């Protein structure tokens, strides 16, 4: 399998002198084509920083980050849909920016909304949808960007447990069907184990890779299955030990 994202010895520092804040400290990580990788850590582990760097929204301080000129799409905790556009308009926007013609745009947006099971909601406004539906529109919009890598920054963090559970199933299905590569940031251990092929545990202040867990349980998984719970408990212990280290 080919490597899509190569993060090699990357350090990210904000500010300089006595105010300098070291967010990431010599982080190395490779993500293979079609892989689902979860970045897990407590507050201040720089997981969102790492996503911003991969997305090209921020500059690395030292090290190399290579995505081979591939396109990325980014999703946040908020859907960040544009309220002046309809649901279909939001999904069409990236296509419009790519110069896709009106008729093709329509057609493609309709297909994408069907993928996230929101066909028939084309003309709704974002505020008319529930939080979970808005995130699915955001996912359709991300798919419209024809990205090779989907970066997700706690995308289900603001949703209730039932909605999140169902969206995990949906994301897993779409990831498989669309053959996506996903880099998924979360602080929820079970969510990471439920979704990831690998779970990368990061330390806090500065962020370093503590351990790279391979999650081999067969899919589709359930968040409350004994395998997921067992592995999550093991990782949680490591995470707690890491948090306790910051007591003084």
């Amino acid at each position, binding site marked *: 399998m080919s490597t899509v994202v190569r993060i090699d010895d990357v350090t990210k520092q904000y500010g300089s002198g006595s105010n300098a804040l070291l967010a990431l400290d010599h982080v190395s990580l490779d993500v293979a084509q079609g892989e689902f990788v979860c970045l897990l850590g407590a507050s201040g582990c720089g997981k969102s920083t790492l996503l911003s760097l991969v*997305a090209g929204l921020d500059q690395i301080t030292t090290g190399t980050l290579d995505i081979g000129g591939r396109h*990325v799409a*980014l999703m946040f905790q*908020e859907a960040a849909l*544009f309220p002046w556009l309809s649901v279909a308009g939001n999904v069409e926007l990236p296509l419009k920016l790519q110069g896709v013609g009106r008729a093709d745009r329509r057609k493609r947006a309709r297909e994408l909304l069907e993928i996230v*099971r929101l066909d028939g909601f084309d003309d709704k406004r974002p505020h*008319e949808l*529930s939080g979970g539906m808005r995130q699915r529109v955001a996912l359709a919009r991300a798919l419209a*960007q024809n990205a090779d890598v989907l970066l997700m920054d706690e995308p289900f963090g603001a949703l209730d447990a039932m909605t999140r559970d*169902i969206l995990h199933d949906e994301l897993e299905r779409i990831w498989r069907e669309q053959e996506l590569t996903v880099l998924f940031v979360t602080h929820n251990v079970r969510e990471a184990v439920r979704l990831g092929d690998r779970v990368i545990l990061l330390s806090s202040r500065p962020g370093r890779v503590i351990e790279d867990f391979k999650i081999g349980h067969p899919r589709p998984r359930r968040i409350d299955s004994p395998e997921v719970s067992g592995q999550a408990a093991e990782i949680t212990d490591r995470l707690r030990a890491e948090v306790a280290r910051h007591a003084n």
Partner: protein
Amino acid sequence: MPTEVVEKQKQADEVSGLDALELGPKKEKGALGRRVWSSFWPKALAIAIVVGAWQIVYLSEWRPAYVFPPPADVFAELGALITEPKFWDGVQLTMTRALTGFALAVAIGTLIGAAVSQFRPLRAAIGSLITGLQTMPSIMWFPLAILLFQLGEKAILFVVVIGAAPSVANGLISGIDYVPRTWLRVGQVMGMRGIAKYRHLILPASLPSFVSGLKQGWAFSWRSLMAGELLVIVPGTVSIGVRMQTARDLSDAVAVLAYIIVVLVIGILVDQFFNAADGALRKRWGLTGN
């Protein structure tokens, strides 16, 4: 495999079931008649209270009737006024001035606002000046305007524009400043640059604030215009302001009050228009409370 098909269908049902539950039932809007009535009666009551108080003050003989006439006389005068074609010529002249001045103020304010929000040094230099100009009472500009342009249309236009443009500029600037960071990041990841970024993100995102700026700008330009029409009487024109001034010169209190009502009504009507635009925008964006 049949089990897989069943599983797929179950997943689809779960998603659409959850959507249906979260969206809930559609809200009843209520009959049209009821809605019109519920927005009408508070206004009618407000008018009744004002007219009633006016009548009481009149009856108390606080001032003689030729200085403070009763509502009935003023409304009779108003009734006579609106059947007079010359009155409508005056309204037309005043509204033409107002719209010309406002349009010019919008054009200038938008240009300045865009420039200030785009160039950092410009913001440092004239950002606070714009806010300062906003607090300046427009009547203070008239002596200068009259020196620059003599007693003419241009003097009035100058003051109307200088009164309204800062509000328009400020509305645009704050709209651009408060575009949410996540929207900008989404735009950046989508590859928006330069003009596309303005067209697809910055301008639509700053629209609500821009509309408030327009509304405030209109209020300033309308006030400036009324001050201007009282002070700068262009020979041969009979605007609302000129009629008002003539009524005062003739000590015609009935006419003075009638023109006050005319100006008030025009102000309210235009304000209603801006409110409707603002309301439609808020509804589209989902900013209205439940």
